[in-house]
Structure formats: C-alpha cells, structure tokens
C-alpha cells in the first residue's frame, strides 16, 4: 500500500506535513481533499504497523522471597469475596438477612496470620486498600502481606501512608541496637515531616517493651525539646511495663508545662503501687473518710476537703469542678480515686472489700465513694475490689425468665441478688462504670459476670459490657445472649433496638451456635402485643446471625485445611 500523492510522502516527517495541511484545510494548500485523506490513511496504517518497541526502563528490584505457604484455594476465594463486599456495599442500606461480610475481615485476617499463610499476590492491592481505609486492619494486613506487600506499597504513592504507620515493623531498627535506635530517635525532630511522630512512637514502644529503663533514658535525653503532644504520647506509652523505676521521671513530669502531660503522669503514678504519689493520696484520704463506730452497724463518715491546695494540684487534682458539681465532692472524688485501695482496708479495721462496700455511708456520700472506688479498682487492676463493686453473681439462674427490659432489679424474681444488687441495691451510680470495672477481672470471670447480668437484666445495657469480653464468647455467655435475644423477640419489640448486640453476636458468638439458632431464624407467629411486622424482622435478624456464624465457621475450616501448595 505505497501511496504517494501530490507531493505527500507518508513517512515519519510526511505525517507532520499531512496534519499541518489538514488543520489549515486542503483548500488553502491547493491540494485535493481526497488525495489528502488517501495519503493520511496510508500514513496512519504505516505508522501503526511500523511502530517499534520502546526502550525498557530500569526493572524494579525483585521482592524478597516469602517462604510462607500459599492460601488454600477456598480461603483465597473467601478473602476475595470479603474484600469485594468491602468495596461493593456502600453502606446506608437496611440490614437484611444477608451477612455483612466486611465486618468479618478482621477475624479472617487474624486467623490467617495465626496460621502463617502469605497473602495471595493478586489480592494485595485490595488488601492494602482495605488497610488504608481502616486503621484497625493495618497490623494484620501488613503481617499477611509480608515482604511482597511492603515491596508493592513502596512503589505506589497511594499506599505510602501504610509504610509510615508504626505497624511497618521491618523498617525499625532492633530495639537493642542502641546506636541505631538513638540515631533514628534523634533524627526525628530534625527531619520533621508527616509520620515522624508515628515512627518515633513505634520506635519508643518497641524500646519500651525490650528495655523499660533504656526507654526512659532515651525519652529524658530529648524531653525538653519535644512537642507537648509528643510528650503526652510518650508518657502514655510508659504504661507498658510500668514500675517504680519510672517514678523519678514521672514525678518530674508532674510539673510539666502541659496540663495533659501532668494529668497523664499523675494517672500513671496513682496506679503504681508503692509510689510516693499513691502514699500522699493515701495520707490525704485517711483523714477524710473515717468509720463512725458509735453506730451499729458502723457508718462511714466523709469529711470532704475544704480547699484544693498547691500540693494536691501538683499531684494531678483538678481544682475546677465540672458544671453542676460541688467543689468539695469533686476534690474528694479525685483523691479517693487516686489513693491505693489498700488504704481503705486499713482505715476500716481490716474489712474485706465486700464488707467495706456493704457498709452504710452517712450524709449521701455513698455514690461518690462507689464511683471513686470503681475508678481506683479499674486503674489499679484490683480484681478483689472490682468483684466487690460489681457484686457477686448469683449461683443459679433466676427461677423464671426475667423481664428483658432492665427494670429495677427488685422486680426480678430471683432468690439470690442479681449482679449489682449486693453492691448498691440497684441504685444508679454514674461513676461506677461496670464495663471499666470488668477490665480488672480475669477473662473467664468477666464473661461469667456479664452472662449473669444479661440473664437478670436483659440486653438493653449489655452492649458495652459485652465489648469488654474476650472473643469468642464462652459457652455460658453465648447462651445468655441468645436466650435474652429470644426473650426480647417474644417481648414484641423491633430487633433494631438490639442491633448493636446483634452485630456483636454475629462477630463474637462461637460459630458452633449456628445449629442451635436455626429454629429462631424460621418465621414465628406474631404475638398479639407485638409491634407490626416485628416477627418478620426478627426472623431476618436471626437469619443474618446464623448466616454470619456459618460463614465464620466456613472461614476457619478453609484456613485450617492443609495448604495445598508449598513453594
């Protein structure tokens, strides 16, 4: 197809001529339009057919070998489906009977990392995108992604934030390599830039775990030059492996320029058994709360402080009360919460925490005391006090199913006091936060307490308590939640009043519960007093619960399968 018309040659330079002629118009150039089109067609095809390869740029350095086994095929498909759901469902839609797969990603990742698999390379982009969107996924995504994931992220600007995150472990030096640690530590403030704080935070946390005293030394060396927000972050990191060796540093921090840093230091010292601050607090409260033995039984009498002196403020007591609160009870509350709990046993004649909590209190100070003790128990991780404040769980479940609404515990036909009952007879104590108190109990006891609480009070207050329990829920807790859900349904309300608990149940119930839940997923007849259509929605909610548990069980089976291919 050689075309040469009226002086146009269809070569490389000819193409430019053709375009120029075409732009101004063949008429002005005095050439025939048809001839111009003929020549252009020949030139176009010739240019396309005659193209030669480009020069290759430098090839990327290959990624390091990942010795971990590949995922079984079914697990790989599952991961792809979970990730597709994440990008697919844009939220906002009503929760139907279908499970929310994206909510299962964290569990899948955790388990896959535990099993020691490598991520399928073709899913790395979707995994890194997920980690970019959800910070909580980052550690597990990066662990699963391994060397190839890091290699990929280093080449893509959109995933750079993942590398700056503290979770990108491999880029940190060995915390015992003092020179390397110091070099990176001191480079931080000079280099600045985004992510510096995170890198230094991750470095500091690593050093603290490996060498607590070395970490304090490191921090002290640059302390005066650190920004307030960084100082606060570093002090918070001292919570790891906290000991009396940290006391001098924290005592000094009580006079820091930043109020946040001062409060954090005081908080740490108050939780540190044997610290001077704890001793000072003990001395203060010893004179403020006494046992009036003239009464029978004896009564606790509180004499709140009349002023908040400089020494108190230095120890972290905030002088100005929040709106609506009296100064004296505010100060007293802070002191009592910061004092070591052992001081009360001493003040109240060697009584046990249970006995102390049961003592009557004069002049309406009881709520303040309970709230302060609760904060102290959580802060000092004192399980005996936590147990006393939470109340002992009943030894057997109530004879009749209690009402699912959290009414006054007195209404519960129970032969033994329900949790919370022995402590306060159901009185409402704003500061006594059971979810926080639970953190002071060992895991099994925590679950048992929450199970009893739910059996007695139903689910309306259960969400935060359940959040404090380890996953998967032990048998008795699972049963309590499922029973309570069934009772709630029979009560005739709509399931979305319990959507928070339902969501937790989907993720935290042992997957083997699916079989037992199956009957609940079937349509039930609507009770007379039910809200209209409630039965259908409940059936849908239970269907989703069963479906989610099934998928979780399948997920685990797939990952537990022996790896088909080992490189």
């Amino acid at each position, binding site marked *: *197809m050689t075309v040469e018309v009226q002086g146009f040659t269809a070569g490389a330079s000819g*193409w430019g001529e*053709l*375009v120029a002629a*075409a*732009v*101004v*118009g*063949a*008429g*002005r150039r005095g050439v025939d*339009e*048809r001839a111009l*089109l003929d020549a*252009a*067609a020949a*030139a*176009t*095809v010739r*240019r*396309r*057919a005659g*193209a030669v*390869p*480009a*020069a*290759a*740029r430098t*090839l*990327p*350095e*290959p*990624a390091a070998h990942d010795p971990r086994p590949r995922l079984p*095929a*079914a697990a790989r*498909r599952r991961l792809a*489906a979970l990730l*597709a*759901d994440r990008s*697919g469902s844009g939220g906002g839609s009503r929760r139907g*009977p*279908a*499970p929310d*797969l994206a909510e299962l990603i964290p569990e899948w990742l955790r388990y896959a990392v535990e099993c020691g698999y490598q991520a399928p390379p*073709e899913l*790395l*982009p*979707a995994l890194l*995108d997920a980690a970019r969107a959800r910070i909580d996924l980052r550690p597990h995504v990066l662990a699963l992604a391994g060397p*190839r994931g890091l*290699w*990929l992220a280093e*080449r*893509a600007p959109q995933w750079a934030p993942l590398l700056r995150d503290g979770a990108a472990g491999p880029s940190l030096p060995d915390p015992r390599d003092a020179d390397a640690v110091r070099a990176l530590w001191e480079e931080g403030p000079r280099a600045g830039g985004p992510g510096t704080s995170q890198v230094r935070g991750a470095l500091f946390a690593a050093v603290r775990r490996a060498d607590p005293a070395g970490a304090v030394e490191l921090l002290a060396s640059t302390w005066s030059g650190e920004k307030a927000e960084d100082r606060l972050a570093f002090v918070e990191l001292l919570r790891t492996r906290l000991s009396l060796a940290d006391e001098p540093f924290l005592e000094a921090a009580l006079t820091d320029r930043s109020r946040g840093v001062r409060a954090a230091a005081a908080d740490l010292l108050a939780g540190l058994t044997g610290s001077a601050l704890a001793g000072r607090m003990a001395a203060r409260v010893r004179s403020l709360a006494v046992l009036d033995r003239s009464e029978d039984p004896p009564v606790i009498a509180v004499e709140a402080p009349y002023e908040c002196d400089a020494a108190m403020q230095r120890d972290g007591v905030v002088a100005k009360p929040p709106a609506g609160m009296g100064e004296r009870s505010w100060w007293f509350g802070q002191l009592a919460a910061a004092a070591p709990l052992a001081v009360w046993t001493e003040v109240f004649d060697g009584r046990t925490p249970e006995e102390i909590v049961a003592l009557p209190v004069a002049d309406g100070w009881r709520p303040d005391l309970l709230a302060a003790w609760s904060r102290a128990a959580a802060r000092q991780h004192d399980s005996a006090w936590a147990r006393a404040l939470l109340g002992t769980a009943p030894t057997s479940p109530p004879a009749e199913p209690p009402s699912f609404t959290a009414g006054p515990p007195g209404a519960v036909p129970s032969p033994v006091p329900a949790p919370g009952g022995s402590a306060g007879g159901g009185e409402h104590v704003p500061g006594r936060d059971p979810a926080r108190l639970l953190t002071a109990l060992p895991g099994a006891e925590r679950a048992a307490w929450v199970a009893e609480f739910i059996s007695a009070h139903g689910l309306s207050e259960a969400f935060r308590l359940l959040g404090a329990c380890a996953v998967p829920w032990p048998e008795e807790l699972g049963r309590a939640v499922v029973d309570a859900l069934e009772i709630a349904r029979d009560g005739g309300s709509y399931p979305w009043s319990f959507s928070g608990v339902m969501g937790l149940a989907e993720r935290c119930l042992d997957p083997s519960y699916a079989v037992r839940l199956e009957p609940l997923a079937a349509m039930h007849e609507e009770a007379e007093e039910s809200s209209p259509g409630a039965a*259908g929605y409940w059936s849908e909610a239970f*269907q989703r619960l*069963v*479906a*989610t548990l099934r*998928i979780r069980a399948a997920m685990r089976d797939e990952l537990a399968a022996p790896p088909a291919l080992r490189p």
Partner: protein
Amino acid sequence: MEGQSERWSADQVLGLAPDASSRTAGSKLAAAGPWAESGAAGGAVWGLCRGSGTRPYQTVVDLQGPAYKCSCPSRKFPCKHALGLLLRWAGGEVPETPPAAEAPGGEGDGGAVPEWAAEWLASRREKAERKAAAGPAAERTPDPAAAAEARRRAEQRLQRIAAGATELEQRLTDLLRDGLATAPRGAVWEETAARMVDAQAPGLAARVRELGSLPASGPGWPARLLAECSLIHLLDQGFLRLDELPGPLAATVRARVGLTVDAAGLLRGGTLRDSWLVLAQEDADDGKLVTRRIWLHGARSQRTALLLAYGAAGRVPEQSLPTGLVLDAELAYYPGAYPLRAALGTVHAGPRSPAGGEGGGAESAVPPGAGIAEAVAAYGAALAADPWLEGIPVVLTDVVPVPEEGDEGWQLAERGGDRALPLHPAATRGPGGWQLLAVSGGGPVTVFGEFGHAGFRPLTTWSAGTAVPLTGAAAAMAGTGTQIAAPKGAGGWR
C-alpha cells in the same frame, strides 16, 4: 453432557456471575442461605430460597446451557439465588436425586423434581429438541419466494449503505477542504452518525460518533482526528469498491461497516474443534449495550478466537466462560482478512479446570506466549491484513511490569533485554496495573492482553499456574467504546 453431569467447581460457578456484587451475594447465600427442598437430577439443580418476603423464591438451573430460572425479581442472569444454589451444589450440599425415585408426594428435601421446576425444564428441553429438529430441515427446503425476497432486501441494504458511505465521504472531504481547525464538535457528528444508522451501517455510525469527542481530547488532537477520518475514508472507499477487493478483505470491510453474518449458517459451513482455554472475559457497557468479549486459545490449533455476546442496557449477556477454564468445543471463524471473531458451536465437554500443569501436554493452564518483538511484528502483519485493527490478542511471556514514575507511564519490559511495550492508558487507571505488579513481585510473568497502537492492555496474568483476571483493566475499559486516547508518553515508544 448427557446423564449425570460432572459437578462443577466453585470457581467455575463464580465465573458465571454477571458482576462482582452478584458473586458476593451468591457466596453469601451459598454459605448461609436459607435453602429448602433443594435437589439435583438429570442435569438440573433446584431449590427454594427464602428471601425477605414471605414466599420463598423458586430457583432452577438447567446445567445444559446453562440456563436459569428464578421467581425473584432480579434482572441479572444468573441471579444471586441461582449462583448460591450452584455453589451449594458445587460444594456437595445439594442431594443428588436419582431420576427414577419418583416420590408419591413429590415434595420434601431430596425428593423428586418438584412440579414448578419440572415444568420449566420440560418446556426448555422440548424447545431445544424442536429447534434441533427444525434447523436442518428448514435449511434443506428453502422457500424460493422467501429466498428471492431476502436477496432483494440484502441488495437494497447494500445500496443504502453505499449511499451512506458516499454521503460520509462528502462530509469528510468538506472537513478536510475547510481544515480541521473548523471541525465541528459533538452534535454535528451525532447527526451524521444518525444518518449512518438510517443507512443501515452501524459500523460507520459508531466510528463517526467517536469523531465528535476528538477535538476536545487534549494536545495532539488534530493528528488523532486526521488518523480517524482517514481510516473512515479508507473504509468508505473499501465499501464503495467491494467488488474489486479480494474475498477475505471484502468480508472484513463488510463486517466493519456493520453487515452481520448468520452464526448458525457459519457453523453449518464447517467448524474447528479444539481444546479451548479461556484467556479472558471482559464486559464493556456503553450505556445502551453490554458487550462481552471472550478470548479463547486452542491447544492444538494454536489459534486465538474472540467470542462476542451482547446484553441490552444493564443486562448481562447470558453466555459466560470463566477465565482459566478449558472447554472442548467447536468454533467457526467469521470470514475476514484477519479472522479472529468466532461463533461457538457444539460444546463437547467443559468448561472445567485444565488438567495439565504449566507448559506441558495438550492442555495447559498457562498458554504459550511470545516475546515483545514478536508481538510488535504480529500487530504490524495483522494491520496489513485489516488496517482498522485497534489491537490484537497477544500472550506475552517473560515480561516484567515496570510501574509509572513521574511522567513515564507503565511498561512491560522483557526480562534480560532492553525492549518494552507501554501499557494502554485505560489499563493503568484502575487497579489492574498494580495487581499485575503484585503478581510479578518484580519477576517475569505471562500476561494475556490486547496489543495495539495505543499500547498493551493486560487482561489476565497467571500466578503459580492459576489464571488471575486483571479486574481493574475491565472496569477502566467500560464505557470507553472503541476510541482510544493517546497513551501517556506515547511519543517515547514510536
């Protein structure tokens, strides 16, 4: 495909899904779905799936075809219920019912085919049989009057197209005489395109429509506009001189203009039976029509074929062949100077997962490929046969993806050499490029894609012998039609 059907794999079922959301929804229903009365027998699978309503959906799948029926309101084929049901069947969770076990009540799990399913299956098979019986018979005894009428209509259409081509030539010469600087935009070309539709030349209409967007396509647009105008001119001239062209080229011109060839007639004219590996499947939706392209590679013939399937707006084409599977089937190529498009005839077996390993035997999971120089030469040779080709299907082996860097676009470079191909810009807009890079890990990979003047558009790669569809490429491609913008850094590769 008669009698007991081979159970499909989950991947195979998922490959039938019309889109990602159906795939996900289907998986959910399979893992957990509230299924009842499900069973399988005689090449069919059925079950009741409880949805949000009170009445469960009735889902039936005829594995021959496959064909789907479901009482749900979804317009997708297959719907998520059909997918969920098939996944359960693939996982061995649907009881296989011997056809003889005709339970008296005909109900209950694992019982005989329930009435609602049997009815549809029977009518479907009856129709298929009627069609099979009627087809050849109709061919043998053509009605002379009808044949004459058909010839007359065909003649009339050719005349209409010729008139359209002549009119289009006038528009092009007008444009070139006055200069591209005066080139009209959108609306005027739309009107010309409508004239081509009236002239029954949809191929010309599509090309003309694309011209409208070029004057606004950024720097260098006059060159692109001139190139496209000249190719339309070439096609016009080809059609107006159809009689002078050699047979295959004439067939190419007819197809490019928009004249179709009857697939059934094509298949009667002789087929090529081979073990076909599905290289890629890709959908493009232009808002009016969903076009599905399926590329196949024959293990014995070493030929590549392209199947096309269409779905009206928003509906997915029914034909689906999951990437990476193999089918023993007969194809017939449409005539042309560079035959690529084919019609699918009898499927003897499959689709199923390939049995062989990499590079070995008649059936391989990874197709044999070419180097960069060969690919470039092949495109050049293909253009000599069909100058309108935007790209040709190519399997590249031993290439390393090089990510973009500053102004430099993505490349596929040969291992141990200095040649490279730029990636098509449409391919690098989505996650496809990154997926390809992730699979490579900086090492050499095998990639299937379309290679043309705008660069290489990767569609599938292989990771440890398993096909990986590069989903991003397909997503980015949807809606771009046939027109291709200049590649990033295109100047660097000529």
